[in-house]
């Protein structure tokens, strides 16, 4: 009887531990926000968007629509420190359904390990921020990599 009692305690402890591990998130939103804010000066904070990314066996394209106003000056600060592996970031003025579009920003040239990216936007009506998430061949039905990417928008 006592044995069952102890096994029960161990099982509960294991469950609590496992659940916490399962839901842990390395996306430290406060730290990410603080780092973005530092690079925002002299622009004024306008908005911020966190995107949760799960690396799966299939490549994904996630898009965030950002409406902006002609004649205003904008800065976008990305923070990729919450990502376990690189994601391609591109900004367009047309959405992903458009037949022809050219990126006005890309992180292709960014040095490895650089996690804060600053972009001062040109005149536009809308911006579409695309995250091209590569396929992860190691992803399995029981385990997959996960993280987050964020950007902050500021205006002058």
């Amino acid at each position, binding site marked *: 009887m*006592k*044995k069952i009692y*102890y096994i029960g*305690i*161990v099982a509960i*402890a*294991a469950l*609590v*531990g*496992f659940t916490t*591990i*399962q839901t*842990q998130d*390395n*996306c*430290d*939103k*406060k*730290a990410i*926000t603080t780092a973005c*804010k530092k690079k925002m000066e002299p622009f*004024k*904070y*306008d*908005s*911020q*968007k*966190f*995107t949760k990314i*799960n690396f*799966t066996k299939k490549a*994904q*394209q*996630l*898009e*965030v*629509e*950002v*409406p*902006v*106003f*002609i004649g*205003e000056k904008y800065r976008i600060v990305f923070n990729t*420190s*919450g990502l*376990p592996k690189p994601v391609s970031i591109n900004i367009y003025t047309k*959405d992903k359904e458009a037949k022809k579009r050219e990126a006005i920003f890309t992180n292709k040239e960014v040095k490895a390990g650089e996690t804060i990216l600053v972009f001062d936007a040109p*005149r536009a*009506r*809308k911006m579409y*921020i695309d995250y091209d998430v590569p396929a992860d061949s190691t992803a399995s039905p*029981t*385990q*997959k*990599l*996960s*993280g987050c990417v964020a*950007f902050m*928008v500021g*205006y002058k």
Partner: protein
Amino acid sequence: MLLNRKSLALKGTMLIATSMLFVACGSETPKEESTEVVAVDSTVVEEEVETTSYSLPSPLQIASIFKKSGLKYKDGITSSQKDAAKYTTNLAKALNLGVYSADLSYTVLNKQNQEAMNCMKLCRQLADNLGMGSVFDQGNLSARFEKNLGNEDSLAYIIAELQMVTDMYLDENNQQQITSIVFAGAWVESLYIGSKVYEKSKGKDLNSKLSEQMTILGSIISALKAEEKKDANITGLIADMESIKAIYDSLDSVKKYNEAANEDADVTLSDEEVTKLTTKIEEVRTKIING
């Protein structure tokens, strides 16, 4: 012997339990590498990922754009409802938090200290009623606001900071739908203020800024639709926003602009068209303010 065995079993249990909790709690310390491996229950069907999401601007930016276009202060056009307790549903609370936020930005940028203070109090009251009043206490925002009354730049900076902590709070609590609803309320109020001031001033810049605001209406509607699954109560709000868009799209100047397909050009509405649009905005705004 029995006692020793019991003691050993208990120690073992405690050791395992402590180890488990230690491993779990250990994840809270900062890591050099942000690798997170998520264990997935293979019996659970994978959640469908939304591939398009939206990042809407702040009410302060809208007020700032209008201010630059020559929007002056007009007495008595901010919300006449000064009793935040009147709003009982979460939808009404969030929408009117947006209305008061727009009024707050308008009064701050026009140095209307007493009214700005009243708007701040109403925002706080509604935020409290939505369970997110704590954001006003972060970094002493409320106290700093009061202390800096009269200093437009400092107040605008404090409002931007308030927006930042609110955005983070809603994101951390998975309540992004509130962000879209609050902004919808703020946008309607900003357009109402802009159009009311335009009635008197007839400023050309203000006219084009009113039309420009309509370009983000599609994004607001899409953002609300994306959150409709979480909160079915916003269906009526979406219909109201779509009714504003329908009026705007039916205007001759807008049709001509759309045919020309020149994104860089500005749309200038005739006075008659502004009146038509204003009437619709006023109708939706009255509905929001009446809760």
